[in-house]
Every structure is written in structure tokens, then in C-alpha cells.
């Protein structure tokens, strides 16, 4: 049996199947299993407050993976994520409360409807690039929010709608722990789906479109089809994240899906790493926990410096902006790249030659 504490001098793979596996090295595979196992027992160890935070992080991660498929992997910038989350949340809300459908039907439908809406707003992407596409997706954000807040009979207007947490086999997922496991299963599914996508034909075509669209077309990729497809696949995951979030907070209302949310999601994939599935998860956790950690810090400090709490609201935005700028300057490839650098460093440590 292999000694698990010793670095192997070479990895030998004897078949293409082995060589094309997601995690090729056994040691790395065990580490992944260990991490998954840790998060599987997470709610049994930690208090409910932390389980709730983890659920929010996980839901954000699903949406961030969705956005990364579009912006990080396919190179199409979108600042309409907030609205697409809203489409997911509202679709599930309308289907469950107005039509009385079960969550298990409305949930995938929320993804499919959002995918369709995303594909529709993705059509201009054939002609528009960069900043111009950003403007077009900004228009999507504005239009969708306008429809949501003005179609009173369907969406309840600015007041929003109230949702229920789902149940499975009579067991209500209303507890923090129950909902955590729902999120956990869907997050793992989303991450594996995305990783698989980018080691097969369609995902490769997405990356080719990002790197050099002219060459991609000459290599036989129908640009229009693949750009719209990227919008659809991306929006599907953003949509199910929206539905999950809606059922978790048990409310959907227009101000929850403002452009602020879109920017936060863009920050997640920038901080986490464009074009990296794991990076999307790191970024989502980072951006979701940032205000929580900041608040904790200020509460501790305000014991010594009274009156500091008043500045919190402003400080949050400042730190948020500063962090994005620092990442863009010092590590544009984000947390995923920092993690990789760290691993590379320890591969040779302590003999770094």
C-alpha cells in the first residue's frame, strides 16, 4: 500500500479514462472526499447560526458558478445576474403559491424559465462585446425588475410575495439543518456538472469563444448558438440559486434583486477567480461572509471606540470596493490562483529548487 504521507515522484496513468478524470491523483481525490465529508457533518457540529450562514454561502456559490460559466468561461460579461436571480425566485414563488405546485416541480422549472429568459437577453451577444454587452445586460436587469415591480396581479408588485420552505416525504426542510442539506446536494451537483462541462465538447467550445472567437468560428463553432447556449446554461443555475434563496428567506421582492446584487455576484467571481469552478465557491463564501466578519470586528472594536457602529454602513461599501480593487491589481485570477500558488509552493517545500 502506498504511503499517504510521502509525495510520489511521478504519476503514471495507463488509460485515457484515468488521464481525463476530474481528480487524477489519489491523494488529491482523498482530500476532496475529506472536505465533502466535513461539510456533510458541518450542521451536526456547528450552531444553527453558522449553518444558516453556510446555507447562504452555498446558495451564492451556485449562482456564482452560473455567472462564471457565462463571464469567466465564455467571456460574456453580464450585469443582469440580480434580475435573473429574481426570475428564478419569482417563478418558483408564483408556481407554488398561485398554482399550488410542489417545490420539487417549481424548482427545476424556475431554472428552465430563467434559462429561457437568459437566452432571450443573450441574443444581442452575437453582435455586442465587452462594454456594449454589459450595457445590454444592464438593460435586461432594468427591464426585468420593471416588469416584476409593475405586474401587480402576478408578482404582488413592490410588496413582493411570501413563500414556504419545501418538505420531502413529510419531513419539512424548514429547519436550518434540513435546508442546509438541500443546498449542499444542489451545490455539489452544480459544481460537478460545471467541471464536467468544461472537460467535454460544449465547455471547450465556450472557452474557445472566450479566447478567440474568430478562430473558434473557423474551427466549426456556431458562435450564435454557443453564445446563446452559454446564456441559457448560466441562467439556469442562477435561476435555481434564485429559487433556493427565495424559499430560504421565504420572501421575494424587487429590492432583493437590485443591481447591487449583480455587482456583488460579479465581485464574487472576480475575487474567486474567473474561469474557475472552485474559485466561484471561494469567492461566494468570501463576499457573503465579508459583511458578517466586518460587523463582528466593529462590534468588538466599539467596546473601546464607542460610536464606531454608526460608520458600519458606509465602511462596508468602502471595504467591498477596496477588496475588489486590490484583487484586480495583485491577483486578477483570484483566490483560486492564490490557492494554486500555495499548493505549488508546498510541492517543493522546503527545497524550493
Amino acid at each position: 500500500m502506498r504511503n499517504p504521507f510521502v509525495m510520489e515522484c511521478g504519476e503514471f496513468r495507463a488509460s485515457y479514462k484515468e488521464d481525463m478524470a476530474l481528480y487524477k491523483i489519489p491523494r488529491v481525490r482523498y482530500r476532496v472526499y475529506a472536505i465533502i465529508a466535513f461539510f456533510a457533518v458541518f450542521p451536526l457540529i456547528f450552531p444553527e447560526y453558522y449553518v444558516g450562514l453556510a446555507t447562504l454561502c452555498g446558495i451564492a456559490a451556485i449562482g456564482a458558478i452560473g455567472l462564471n460559466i457565462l463571464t469567466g468561461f465564455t467571456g460574456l460579461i453580464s450585469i443582469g445576474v440580480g434580475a435573473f436571480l429574481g426570475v428564478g425566485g419569482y417563478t418558483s414563488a408564483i408556481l407554488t403559491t398561485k398554482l399550488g405546485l410542489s417545490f420539487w416541480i417549481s424548482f427545476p422549472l424556475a431554472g428552465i424559465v430563467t434559462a429561457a429568459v437568459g437566452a432571450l437577453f443573450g441574443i444581442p451577444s452575437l453582435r455586442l462585446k465587452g462594454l456594449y454587452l454589459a450595457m445590454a445586460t444592464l438593460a435586461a436587469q432594468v427591464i426585468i425588475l420593471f416588469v416584476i415591480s409593475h405586474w401587480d396581479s402576478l408578482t404582488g408588485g413592490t410588496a413582493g410575495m411570501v413563500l414556504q420552505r419545501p418538505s420531502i416525504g413529510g419531513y419539512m426542510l424548514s429547519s436550518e439543518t434540513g435546508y442546509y442539506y438541500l443546498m449542499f446536494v444542489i451545490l455539489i451537483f452544480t459544481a460537478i456538472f460545471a467541471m464536467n462541462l468544461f472537460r467535454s465538447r460544449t465547455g471547450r467550445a465556450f472557452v474557445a469563444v472566450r479566447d478567440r472567437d474568430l478562430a473558434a468560428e473557423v474551427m466549426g463553432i456556431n458562435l450564435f448558438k454557443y453564445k446563446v447556449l452559454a446564456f441559457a446554461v448560466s441562467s439556469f443555475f442562477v435561476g435555481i440559486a434564485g429559487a433556493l434563496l427565495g424559499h430560504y428567506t421565504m420572501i421575494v421582492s424587487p429590492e432583493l434583486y437590485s443591481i447591487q446584487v449583480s455587482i456583488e455576484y460579479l465581485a464574487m467571481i472576480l475575487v474567486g477567480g474567473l474561469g474557475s469552478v472552485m474559485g466561484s465557491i471561494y469567492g461566494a463564501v468570501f463576499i457573503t461572509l465579508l459583511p458578517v466578519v466586518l460587523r463582528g470586528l466593529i462590534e468588538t472594536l466599539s467596546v473601546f471606540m464607542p460610536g464606531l457602529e454608526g460608520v458600519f454602513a458606509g465602511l462596508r461599501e468602502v471595504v467591498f470596493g477596496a477588496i475588489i480593487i486590490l484583487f484586480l491589481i495583485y491577483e486578477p485570477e483570484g483566490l483560486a490562483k492564490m490557492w494554486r500558488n500555495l499548493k505549488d509552493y508546498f510541492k517543493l517545500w522546503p527545497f524550493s529548487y
Partner: protein
Amino acid sequence: MPLLEVENLSLHFGGVAALNEVSFHIEEGEIFSLIGPNGAGKTSMLNCISGLYHPSQGSIKFDGREITHMKSYKRTELGIARAFQNIELFKNMTVLENLMLGRHVRMKSGVLSGGFYWGLAQKEEIEHRKAVEDIIDFLEIEHYRDQPVGMLSYGLQKRVEVGRALALDPKILLLDEPMAGMNSEEKEDMARFVIEIHEERKTTVVLIEHDMGVVMDLSDHIAVLDFGKLIGFGTPSEIQQNPKVIEAYLGEEQTG
């Protein structure tokens, strides 16, 4: 019947004629060279054939089919592959991924089977990986297969560029100055690859090249362009004797 037939082709940018009533044909299984001074319209010609430019007049027939107005990606499906003059590789993808992308039109799996990596997608990836590995062996780039192409040297990138086009299993391979900017050793390697592509894979090759030694040695037929006009078309020996070509391009010494 010729594999590719260009008839009366004209291409205008505003008032400038990049190509002016050019006609020639390429037989199946030959090495065909397109030569001429800089700005003569050689790359424009290839762009018309691969569908990046749309000619203002004339027609292009491939394998008996009219393709003048066909979309670029559809021509690729028919078997027209192209390597660019200025390297147009996917820089963040590895050599392997670049070549696998070359097989895009030969594969079928979609989003769902790809995402689940189940059945078709997995079988297909493995099957096509074998074809790609053959090309990697052939081009002698085994050591670089997992490196992002952006990190490779210029000569190797040119080789990967040819490999990506070859991965398509094309009927006709358009090579736009595959040897430009290479030293003589790299040039010899590339010439060897072109000959082997032609002889072992029976692929028709269209070559744009400025090195007359290479062109005269390799080609079965040559077309000469000057200011968008066809001034010569024939075998290498005919071209070397053609007074118009000598005046416009080859120069006097070569006739001596």
C-alpha cells in the same frame, strides 16, 4: 472534377479591389501554392475560401457544392480546415484542449451529456482523444501536451496551429505562411510535416509561402497573385518561365 473551384472571384473593400476576377482550380490530393508579393490578396483569397470574407462577385465550389455564401462554421463541417498566419490559438487552453477543439465538428455530445459526463460524452472524449494523440505523435509535441499554448515558443505554436487544423480530418487544409518567422531547422521540420500530411493522410494542401525554394519543391500547382489579379497559374516549371511572374515577383536572377 477539381476539389475546389474558384471562378471569377472579386472582393472589394470600398473602392479598393483586393481580388479582381480570379479563377483557378485545385485538384484533389495535390499540394497547391498561392504566391505573390505582400498585399497581393493571398490571405484575402483564403479568407474567402474559409468564409471570413464574402466576395462581391464570382463563385467558389467545393467538392461540387456551391459554398460562396455558406457560413464559415458550415464549411468547416464540409472539411475545410485553416491554420492562420498570425497565430490564432486559444491561448489559455492546453495543447491537448486546442487539438480536441479541432475535433469539435466530428463530435456530437451536447450540454447535458457533457455536464453529466455519462455515456456518449465520456465515450466520445476517449475515442477522439486517441485521434488527437496520433496527431501529437505525428507533430512531435508530446512533451507539451498539458501546457497552455500561450507559454510555448513561436515555432511550437505554429506547429500546434497546424495540428489543430489537422485534427479536423480535413479534405483540404489551408496553411497561411506556416513557415513565416522560423529558422531553417524549423522550416525543414514544417516542410516535412506538410509532405507527410499530403502523402500519409492524402490531404489536399493549399500553401501560402514566401520561401520560393520550399514552394517550388513541394507544389504540384502554383497560382500567382499580384494586386488582386491572377498573373500566373501552372506547374512550378511553368511559373518559373512565366515572364509576368518574373517581372512582378520572382525577379531576373532566377531565370539565369
